[in-house]
């Protein structure tokens, strides 16, 4: 029997949700796979919700907000754009980015809504179910998604994302404006590092491993892993497990 | 110092200047003294042994006393005994009583010794007496024999007792100074003869005897023939100040190894080794020193006397 993807949709109350209602009122049909959560504004959608959804086996997530400029809260959708952009970067690292899509639907665009939903459902259909759903070998993807979730919950990244617009447009505390592209590099660098660090923590949660073993498990140069281990130790998240012969092993210590 | 008359045959012979030998009998923890008498027989038979010491608790061990075996050796075997007495076990009253007893029994020679400390013996926790020291014992004997009184001057009834008293000297002591002065004291107090502990080094023995000449009292040099390698190594290792010459030691060891099974052959070889070492030794002492003789401590090794002393 054909695969029926489970799609999750976050619709902002003022535009996309109203657009969906209009599609209903005008009886425009679209596939039934989508389950909708109404949020007051697309800006409200916390990227870690989406990571959480994927962990629970959702095959595709759709986030719809008002067209830029129409937002009932003026800048909500701009924030959403920044957040989803960061999330997208992370999902690319674990090639999950096609399973998420951000788009704008105004209250009057009933059929645009239906058309987006059916387009997205077919796209996910073609993609097939999320790898997390096949029981045997989903440990790798589970670790990755857990890592993504942790990164998204990390205060450093959230802080930067929250201040990105203000710092790029209005300028920082010294009154200088940070170029968008410089900020983008900073975000990339933070995402890159934090993702590797979370992967390390997840890999050594149960059993202590040595730096070379971690390195080839997560495919990162051993010297880089060591630098990350140093940072994680200074934050009290990782510590030495034991030293046999000349190979020290590290293990994550919960709760710092 | 007045020269006491020679009551004992030993002292008489010494004063005649005849080079003589004395043996040593060690009554152990035993009631049957026949082995002691048997050894005394053997010594008598050689005709070379003038007298034999009878030990009194050697190494501080609790053995049969010296007086009774001495008396039996003199009575039953006719060999004059040198009756040893230590100050370790008896206070001055007991010493006085024993000396009188021994004299009455006809014992003529008494060797006054301090005696090894009870802590070294087989009754370590005994309380040592040491009321007198060996010098003071000689003083007691002198008063008894010469003055006929005890230490406090109380008269002894009956005719005077006739005993010659000797003392010990240690050729291996270093520093040697105190040893010489001590012997001097004992001679001043009336010692008639001196018997030295075992010596193995000929030159050492010779110059010790040289130093004792100043007291012009007969000196018997102590020698200790080695019955087997066991005794030899024990002596070398455990009796401090005494070291058995290396070649003698290795010869005995070789003998023990080669003649492991044949006991008789082994004893012969050992006797030969002993004779080869001690005979020239005695010859040289006799020839080059004023020693009055040799105190040969062949304890339980009496069979050696015959071959060893045959040309003396």
């Amino acid at each position: 029997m054909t695969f029926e993807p489970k799609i999750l949709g976050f619709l902002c109350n003022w535009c996309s949700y109203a657009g969906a209602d209009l599609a209903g009122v005008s009886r425009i049909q679209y596939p039934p796979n989508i389950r909708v959560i109404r949020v007051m504004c697309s800006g409200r959608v916390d990227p870690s919700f989406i990571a959480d959804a994927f962990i629970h086996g959702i095959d595709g997530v759709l986030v719809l907000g008002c067209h830029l400029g129409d937002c009932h809260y003026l800048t909500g959708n701009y924030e959403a754009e920044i957040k989803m952009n960061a999330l997208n970067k992370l999902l690319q690292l674990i090639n999950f980015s096609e399973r998420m899509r951000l788009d704008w639907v105004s209250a009057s665009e009933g059929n645009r809504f239906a058309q987006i939903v059916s387009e997205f459902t077919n796209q996910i259909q073609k993609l097939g179910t999320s790898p997390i759903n096949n029981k045997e070998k989903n440990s790798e993807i589970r670790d990755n998604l857990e890592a993504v979730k942790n990164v998204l919950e990390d205060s450093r990244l959230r802080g930067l994302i929250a201040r990105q617009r203000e710092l790029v447009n209005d300028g920082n505390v010294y009154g200088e404006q940070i170029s968008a592209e410089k900020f983008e590099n900073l975000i990339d660098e933070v995402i890159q590092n934090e993702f590797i660090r979370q992967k390390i923590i997840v890999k050594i949660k149960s059993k202590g491993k040595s730096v070379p073993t971690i390195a080839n498990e997560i495919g990162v140069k051993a010297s880089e892993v060591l630098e990350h281990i140093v940072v994680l130790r200074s934050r009290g998240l990782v510590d030495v497990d034991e030293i046999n012969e000349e190979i020290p092993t590290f293990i994550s210590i919960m709760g710092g | 110092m007045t020269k006491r008359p020679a009551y004992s045959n030993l002292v008489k012979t010494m004063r005649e200047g005849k080079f003589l030998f004395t043996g040593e009998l060690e009554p152990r923890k035993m009631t049957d003294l026949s082995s002691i008498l048997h050894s005394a027989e053997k010594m008598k038979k050689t005709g070379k042994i003038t007298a034999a010491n009878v030990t009194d608790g050697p190494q501080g061990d609790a053995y049969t006393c010296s007086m009774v075996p001495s008396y039996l050796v003199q009575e039953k075997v006719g060999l004059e005994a040198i009756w040893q007495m230590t100050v370790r076990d008896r206070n001055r009253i007991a010493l006085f009583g024993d000396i009188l007893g021994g004299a009455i029994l006809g014992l003529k020679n008494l060797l006054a010794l301090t005696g090894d400390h009870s802590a070294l013996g087989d009754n370590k926790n005994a309380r040592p007496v040491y009321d007198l020291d060996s010098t003071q014992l000689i003083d007691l004997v002198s008063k008894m024999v010469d003055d006929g009184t005890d230490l406090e001057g109380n008269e002894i009834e009956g005719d005077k007792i006739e005993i010659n008293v000797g003392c010990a000297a240690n050729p291996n002591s270093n520093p040697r100074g105190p040893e010489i002065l001590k012997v001097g004291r004992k001679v001043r107090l009336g010692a008639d003869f001196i018997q030295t502990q075992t010596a193995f080094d000929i030159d050492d023995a010779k110059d010790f005897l040289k130093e004792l000449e100043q007291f012009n009292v007969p000196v018997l040099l102590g020698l200790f023939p080695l019955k087997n390698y066991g005794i030899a190594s024990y002596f070398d290792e455990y009796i401090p100040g005494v070291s058995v010459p290396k070649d003698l030691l290795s010869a005995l060891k070789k003998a023990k190894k080669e003649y492991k099974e044949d006991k008789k052959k082994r004893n012969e070889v050992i006797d030969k080794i002993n004779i080869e070492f001690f005979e020239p030794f005695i010859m040289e002492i006799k020839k080059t020193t004023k020693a009055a003789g040799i105190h040969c401590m062949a304890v339980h090794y009496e069979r050696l006397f015959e071959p060893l002393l045959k040309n003396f």
Partner: protein
Amino acid sequence: MIITQQKDIEEIYDMIKSYSKILIVGCDGCCQPPRSINEAKVLAQMLELKARSEGKELKWKAITVLRQCDDRIAATTVRPFIEHYDAIVSLSCGLGVVMMNKVFENILTYPAQNSLFGGAENNAENYFAEYCETCGECLLGVTGGVCPMAGCAKNLSNGPCGGTVGGKCEVGGYTHDCAWVKIWDRLRKFNRLDLFNKYRPPRNYRKWSSPRFAEINKTYTNEEETMEEEK
């Protein structure tokens, strides 16, 4: 000074097990190592902990006395505390314990120390050695200051015996110096070997056997005094 060594705690505790209130008395006198109020408190604390571990409650008070072996001093210092306590534990040497029992008939004083010997302190090598036997007839004048009674295992007056090797005494496996060899060495240094050679007659052991007494500031009765004049 009297050298003492503390008994094992179990032994001390066994002595006072049956009492519930004890007085612990230190002594500031000659005993070494010092046994004053600090040591008294430490011992008391240990006894209290021991009692507690045996399921009993022990009350104590720690005081110290200038010299427990002096009856007047002991009496005046300790008497005020006696009636509140069932027994006394004394940290002084044997002399103190005997005096306390003598002065306070109706309370028992238990010894916390084993008195070893009258000794002197060699601070550099921090050990104590017995240099005087209180034999009553001092020979130190003729032995160059080395006591043969305390130093020689056989207390010889005209040493050395045959058992000395390399200047060491046979007793104790040739570890301690032979007193007489030391005497000879020291007299030789001041060339007074004449003293070494002198013969010392048998000793008067009455002076060295207890019980011994010495009368101090004797008060003459007038009869004795007249008797003296006639003699």
